């Protein structure tokens, strides 16, 4: 306590004024009193004063130690260095501003990428003690699993299994459950005139908020009492939705909302910042109790013990290790499975011994975005780090020039006895001052960039809440910026500091020296070589990524996108039963077709490149059963009449669907060429039959083959997969639980020159059913472009970094060449006097510059290839070692190096020999 107080006092007096004057007065008084006493004891006045001074001791030394005690010498030195550095920087404003701006760019870019990495990959959920939480499942799995066995690990559970775990696991103080996938609901305020709008919501177990330790912002959170069959339906809103959609209206709490037509009481508002259990691009806007699921869903999953759709996350009791709970739960899993032995099929029983589960830290949530964005954030982080390195090299270069200019002064200081440590401190302090200023400016740059990036990278789906990522710098981000500022400052400060110690004191006496900066010129050359090679790495990486995106964009889609619009509907949310669907589809088709400007339309399960796909196994009638290693999977789509014409997918053979294909007639299918090749090889597929399970291998007769088209994008680099179409008219509408009966997408072709607005479409849809909202609406072109958005964004950002590095490296080369030329004016003069031509001189300078560039290439090309290896996963099958791209990168770099070196080279060739020889 006393020590701390002393430290604070000393820090304070270091920073503010001190009271030296008073001390010397105190000393004088002391000596005067001693003198008086000596006189009283009989000494002569002069002798009395001499004795007094002797007795007091060495005044200078005591004053010095008094001063040392007053402040903190270390702190004072730092302050002095900082003041001195700032003064020196103020005297070179152009240098300072240029350096701070370049640093701000470099640090800003890195900080901005780090902000995203922090938000997506590192940050914990905004809940109480997130580090304590554990979730079940190591890998991310979505969204449904059926039966009584799961591959590798049991990671999602049925409600029955959840209850078994919840009631029997003693290690957890609380364990909550919620669906693995997010659901959409049609929501409107009860009593209002507005139509229902689609919003994301989440079913959660009653103890969800208690487990996370979330306290209400207003009202109350859901409780286990709300999550019981027969309880009054209750819902909790997120703060964001409440504020943005309802203007923080306090009367919302206690009001009733219709969720898919069922009334729910809003009991409370979750606190600001809480976005649920998982960072998603479209987070839920409200929470409902799990037990309300049967109220809303006609085909409820809640009470099916073999439908696994819930994630689990829990908080262990204090002192209980996760491995204890894991062991406990593994036993419970086996117990539960055994209790369902009679429901299990042979496959499940065979896999029973291998069933196990794992717990994983759950503090950062379920991380659906981590998998999606982790890899490309890493790439961008590396790219921005490389730019920062090049920035460092540039500033180190400038600093070296400055230190050469300051040589006279340094050697004079050395000659006067300044220790080396003192000489190192000066340039280091200057560099740190620069980098910290650059860091401060960089934080501002990062703020702007991050907002832009969040907007571009996590483009919100229209109508949905944006991703809950805050661009404002948080504490960890500020620390990061401060940390890299310090590191960069030291990085580019080391060379000049080291140079300072190499200065020979004798130089001060000798005057101008030409030869002394040998090591300095080597360092500067080395820096340019490093810059060139790093820039080459970035350029070739961005070349690879751009080529990838371009080849993806250029590949023929196999379907038409112009004049095509896609609308998304959800009849299931509007409460339709499967038997009502055929009539609904016909009415939609007629209503949309009646809109002026619409030439045709068709409905489908999934529209091209919507980011979704339905898969199934295929069994061909008359072919041997596929073995366990055979791939018999295919993608498929259920479409209404005329879909293939609407989408513009041309037939290769046979016919498309027609009026003949009605309910009750022979079920037919149209397959793509990949399907025909994969399942029939050289056989003619027309007239052959296949089915979606082995018992119905003869269900569908193939009547036509369409040309291959790129309908799914997750495997862009691979050949097109087998795909088949089934006509909606022949669908099994008697099956009430068949999700594939609900056609979500509508493709509309407009007449040339006509446009279709959302409001016009909504009007038409309202004539069919006012409770059936259009969830999203846009052109097929945009839908296709959106799928390529992420690779395109990485490619663009990497190219931006590449261009930045190119400019910086060129500036570095220009600086070194110009400086070297200016030091060689004499030599040039002599050469010209001896008959060298202008061309000779230009070539001489260029040769010097290009020897550096060549070294840069020699070092950079292997690194570029290593970097390409890292990128391989993002290239969709493109050869990462493409020599063409490397050559292009080399050419671009060489061209800009030529420009950078040509300026000083030409200037050197204009030197007049007589003048050159006179400048000594």
């Amino acid at each position: 306590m006393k020590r701390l107080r002393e430290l604070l006092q000393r820090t304070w007096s270091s920073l503010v004024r001190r009271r030296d004057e008073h001390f010397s007065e105190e000393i004088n008084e002391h000596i005067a009193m001693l003198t008086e006493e000596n006189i009283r004891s009989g000494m002569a006045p002069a002798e009395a004063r001499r004795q007094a001074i002797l007795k007091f001791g060495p005044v200078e030394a005591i004053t010095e130690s008094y001063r040392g005690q007053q402040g903190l010498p270390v702190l004072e030195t730092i302050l002095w260095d900082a003041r001195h550095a700032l003064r020196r920087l103020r005297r070179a404003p152009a240098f300072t501003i240029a350096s701070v701006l370049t640093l701000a760019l470099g640090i800003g870019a890195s900080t901005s990428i780090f902000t995203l990495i922090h938000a997506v990959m590192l940050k914990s959920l905004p809940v109480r003690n997130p580090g304590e939480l554990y979730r079940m499942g190591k890998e991310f799995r979505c969204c449904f699993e059926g039966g009584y066995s799961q591959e590798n690990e049991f990671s999602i559970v049925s409600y029955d299994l959840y209850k078994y775990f919840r009631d029997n696991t003693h290690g957890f103080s609380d364990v909550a459950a919620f669906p693995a996938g997010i659901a959409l609901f049609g929501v409107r305020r009860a009593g209002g005139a507005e139509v229902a709008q689609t919003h994301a919501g989440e079913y959660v177990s009653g103890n969800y908020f208690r487990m996370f330790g979330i306290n209400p912002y207003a009202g109350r959170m859901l409780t286990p009492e709300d999550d019981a069959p027969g309880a009054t339906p209750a819902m909790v809103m997120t703060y964001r939705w409440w504020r943005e959609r309802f203007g923080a209206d306090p009367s919302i709490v206690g009001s009733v909302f219709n969720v898919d037509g069922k009334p729910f009481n809003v009991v409370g508002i979750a606190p600001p910042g809480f976005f649920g259990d998982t960072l998603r691009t479209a987070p839920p806007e409200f929470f409902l109790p799990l037990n309300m699921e049967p109220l809303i869903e006609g085909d409820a999953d809640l009470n099916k013990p073999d439908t696994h759709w819930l994630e689990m996350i829990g908080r262990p009791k204090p002192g209980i290790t996760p491995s204890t709970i894991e062991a406990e739960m593994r036993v419970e899993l086996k117990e539960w499975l055994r209790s369902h032995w009679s429901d299990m099929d042979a496959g499940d029983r065979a896999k029973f011994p291998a069933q196990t589960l794992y717990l994983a830290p759950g503090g950062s949530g379920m991380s659906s975005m981590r998998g999606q964005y982790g890899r490309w954030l890493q790439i961008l982080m590396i790219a921005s780090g490389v730019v920062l390195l090049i920035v460092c090299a540039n500033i180190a270069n400038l600093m070296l020039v400055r230190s050469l200019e300051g040589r006279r002064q340094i050697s004079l200081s050395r000659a006067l006895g300044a220790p080396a440590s003192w000489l190192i401190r000066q340039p280091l302090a200057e560099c740190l001052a620069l980098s910290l200023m650059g860091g401060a400016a960089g934080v501002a740059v990062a703020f702007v960039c991050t907002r832009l990036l969040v907007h571009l990278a996590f483009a919100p789906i229209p109508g949905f809440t944006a991703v809950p990522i805050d661009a404002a710098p948080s504490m960890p981000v500020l620390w990061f910026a401060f940390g890299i500022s310090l590191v960069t400052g030291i990085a580019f400060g080391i060379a000049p500091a080291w140079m300072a110690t190499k200065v020979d004191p004798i130089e001060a006496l000798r005057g101008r020296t030409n030869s002394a900066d040998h090591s300095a010129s080597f360092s500067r050359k080395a820096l340019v070589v490093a810059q060139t090679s790093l820039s080459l790495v970035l350029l070739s990486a961005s070349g690879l990524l751009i080529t990838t995106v371009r080849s993806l964009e250029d590949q023929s889609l196999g379907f038409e996108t112009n004049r095509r619009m896609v609308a998304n509907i959800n009849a299931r949310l509007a409460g339709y039963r499967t038997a009502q669907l055929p009539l609904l589809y016909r009415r939609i088709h007629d209503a949309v077709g009646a809109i002026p400007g619409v030439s045709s339309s068709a409905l489908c399960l999934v529209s091209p490149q919507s980011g979704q796909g339905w898969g199934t196994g295929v069994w061909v009638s008359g072919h041997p059963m596929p073995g366990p290693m055979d791939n018999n999977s295919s993608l498929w789509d259920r479409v209404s009449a005329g879909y293939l014409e609407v989408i513009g997918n041309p037939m290769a053979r046979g016919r498309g669907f027609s009026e003949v294909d009605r309910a009750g007639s022979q079920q037919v299918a149209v397959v793509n060429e990949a399907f025909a090749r994969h399942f029939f090889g050289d056989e003619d597929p027309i007239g052959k039959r296949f089915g979606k399970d082995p018992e119905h291998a003869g269900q569908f007769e193939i009547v036509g083959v369409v040309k291959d088209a790129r309908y799914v994008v997750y495997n862009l680099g691979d050949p097109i997969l087998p795909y088949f179409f089934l006509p909606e008219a022949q669908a099994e509408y008697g099956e009430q639980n068949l999700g594939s009966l609900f056609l979500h997408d509508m493709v509309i072709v407009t007449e040339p020159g006509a446009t279709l607005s959302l409001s016009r479409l909504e009007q038409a849809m309202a004539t069919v059913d006012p409770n059936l909202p259009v969830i999203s609406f846009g052109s097929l072109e945009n839908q296709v472009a959106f799928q390529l958005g992420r690779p395109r964004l990485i490619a663009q950002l990497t190219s931006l970094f590449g261009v930045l590095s190119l400019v910086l490296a060129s500036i570095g080369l220009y600086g070194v060449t110009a400086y070297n030329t200016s030091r060689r004016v004499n030599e040039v003069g002599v050469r010209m006097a001896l008959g060298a031509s202008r061309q000779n001189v230009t070539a001489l300078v260029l040769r010097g510059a290009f020897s550096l560039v060549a070294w840069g290439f020699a070092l950079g090309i292997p690194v570029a290839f290593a970097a390409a290896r890292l990128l391989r996963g993002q290239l969709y099958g493109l050869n990462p070692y493409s020599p063409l791209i490397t050559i292009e990168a080399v050419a671009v770099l060489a061209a800009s190096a030529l420009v950078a070196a040509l300026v000083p080279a030409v200037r050197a060739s204009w030197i007049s020999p007589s003048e050159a020889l006179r400048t000594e």
Partner: protein
Amino acid sequence: MNDKTEVQQGTLALMVLKTLDVLGPLHGYGIARRIEQISGDLLSVNQGTLYPVLLKLEQQGVISSKWGASENNRRARFYRLTASGRKYLKAETSEWEQTAAIIGRFFAVKAEDLR
């Protein structure tokens, strides 16, 4: 700084505090004289070394200082013990006595006592 002077610095601080405790507010010269009278030659060479110690004690908040007039009507800085200083002195005194007692007992022990 060797061990001996460190010990002396500590003891010097204690002496200052005790002096202020006994005599009340006092200027540097007065403190130096008092310590000299009692301790003999400990401070006889450099009275000035007292001042850094006084400053440190003031920074620690165990003493405080104020400018005033001395007996001979000179301007002088008067040091006084603060409340926390008094508490600190008390604690230090008992600790010191304890240490002294233990050391004293150790030194009193003769070889034959240990047989």
